[in-house]
């Protein structure tokens, strides 16, 4: 059922709009999942896909009680649809269809979420083996990370978490603040974590691309999770191949009219040569599945 959400918080983090939406009836999302959202008084015909940035649906504050479903989105204003969303104010209504698609867990990148609790979990079972979890985000691709950090805090990540985020400039890098809580929780759960930032203009963090940073110390047994523009995803996959990393997952972005498999608008050609619907088989796909394993010519 399409749901109606109420904007509970609306603020800008750098150039991006950060919306917290209360959505009665929302079932709870996994990181990497998305929703089709649209301002209630929209001049757009179609909804637009946005990653669930954070989701406090299933968090028990005290045993047995739940938060009201409260779902966050991070919106980069690139056109009319995103512009309308970015202009929303508290109490405005939003139409929501979701959660949709395969998130990181369903795609096999992280173990499926157990029932999470707000308190630090006693133990969890990760799939990360010996390697680190390396999370790579570009620009508004940072969106799904808060929920992702929530999920991994309940796993045992022996070698820790490395977050690499690339931005155009220090202005975009302000969006990093949406990770503060999650990183703090990792610390409390004693999961070693490190953050590396790049900006294209060097105005914050390392000057350059996020792939430069990744290239420096990627290890073959690392697990890499990637959210960002297509070009960045492909570049990251190249770096992964070069370093012998096979465990890499990518959240793909294509044009989506429906988000549920009806329109065949969102297809992309995947490694097996077929055109596949990203909204159904993705948006999270393994690197080999999406881009294939041919040797790079570089």
């Amino acid at each position, binding site marked *: *059922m*399409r749901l109606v959400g109420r904007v509970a918080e609306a603020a800008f983090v750098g150039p991006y709009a950060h919306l917290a939406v209360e959505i009665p009836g929302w*079932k709870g999302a996994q990181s990497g999942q998305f929703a*089709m959202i*649209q301002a209630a008084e929209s001049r*757009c*015909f*179609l*909804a637009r896909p946005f990653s669930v940035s954070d989701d406090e649906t299933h968090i028990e504050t005290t045993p047995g009680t739940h938060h009201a479903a409260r779902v966050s989105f991070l919106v980069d204003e690139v056109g009319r*649809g995103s512009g309308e969303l970015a202009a929303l104010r508290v109490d405005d209504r939003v*139409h929501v*269809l979701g959660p*949709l*698609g395969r998130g990181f867990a369903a795609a096999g990148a992280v173990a499926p979420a157990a029932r999470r609790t707000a308190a630090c979990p006693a133990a969890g079972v990760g799939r990360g083996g010996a390697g680190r979890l390396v999370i790579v985000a570009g620009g508004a691709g940072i969106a799904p990370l808060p929920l992702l950090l929530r999920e991994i805090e309940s796993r045992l990540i022996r070698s820790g978490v490395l977050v690499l985020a690339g931005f155009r400039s220090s202005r975009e890098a302000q969006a990093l603040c949406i990770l503060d809580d999650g990183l703090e929780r990792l610390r409390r759960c004693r999961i070693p974590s490190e953050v590396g930032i790049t900006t294209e203009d060097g105005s914050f963090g390392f000057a350059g691309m996020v792939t430069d940073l990744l290239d420096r110390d990627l290890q073959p047994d690392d697990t890499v999770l990637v959210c960002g523009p297509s070009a960045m995803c492909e570049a990251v996959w190249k770096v992964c191949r070069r370093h012998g990393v096979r465990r890499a997952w990518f959240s793909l972005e*294509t*044009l989506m*009219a*429906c*988000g*549920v*498999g*009806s*329109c*065949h*608008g969102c*297809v*992309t050609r995947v490694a097996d040569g*077929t*055109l596949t*619907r990203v*909204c*159904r088989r993705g948006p999270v796909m393994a690197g080999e599945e999406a881009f294939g394993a041919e040797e790079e010519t570089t």
Partner: protein
Amino acid sequence: MSSRLHTHLGPMFLEYPVINASGTLDLLETADALGLDGDYRVPVAAYVPKTVTMLPREGNPTPRVAEVAAGMVNSIGLPNEGVKAFVADTLPRLLNLTCPLIVNVAGFSRDEYVSVVERVSRALADELGSDKGTWAPRVGIELNVSCPNVDSGCMSIGTDAEEIARLTQAVRDVWPTPLLLAVKLTPNVTDIASMALAAEEAGASAVSLVNTFKGLIVDRDTLKPYLGGITGGLSGPAIKPLALRCVFEVAAVVDIPIIGMGGIACTQDVVEFMACGASVVAVGAAGFVDPWLPARLAEELEEVLCERSLTLSELIGKIH
């Protein structure tokens, strides 16, 4: 839904007069995407899957969709698994749905249409038994002679009244009366009424109006055609006045039922299409925003009928 909405489409009983437009609702995928069980309440009174062709088709290059003022333009290009896989994998699942099924078929020649329908018939004989009379309430065929997004066949048939007649006749031979045979027409013609008449005279038991209007999107960056298929089909509220005119014109000349569609997004739209002469309406692209829209519109339609003290049959064709 209340008996006030009960209706028939040829030999098919429909719980309410709202279905989906082919290619705009994949019921199985949607149910799965939304984590619904297999036996959830289907949101349409009859289900029309995406067009099936003889051979599997990949569809057109990307981008395939773009939003425009009050609508969208698509150039999907009829991707589908082909009739062989369709009858083997999909058809049995669709026959398990709680609503009747209208299989939408296209081909690149008259023979191809006939072959696809024959394949479907054979599969149905396996599933439902060989007495075709018993199929009538459960399965129908819709001939898509109107897709603007493929190179040959299809729309070139739909713009030629004689071709429409020949095709309808040929399919009627393998898909006999009383089975539902709807012909889905293109509005990209000078005179859609003559196309509908041709279909009726050749034995169609319904006409579906309308498929999309041929349009073009310019890539705002490169100033080249934006869609992978170069041109595409416009649908959504933008085309509603044009689609209503088509239904109005066709209803004036044919006696078979009309499945009306084109921009339906709210209950008022349903009322208008039925007033123009549609017996049943189909929700197309507006269903992308809300897959439950058809059933919701039916519920609201019932309220409108009550408010206006109209029966369904009084509403149908009220404009004439």
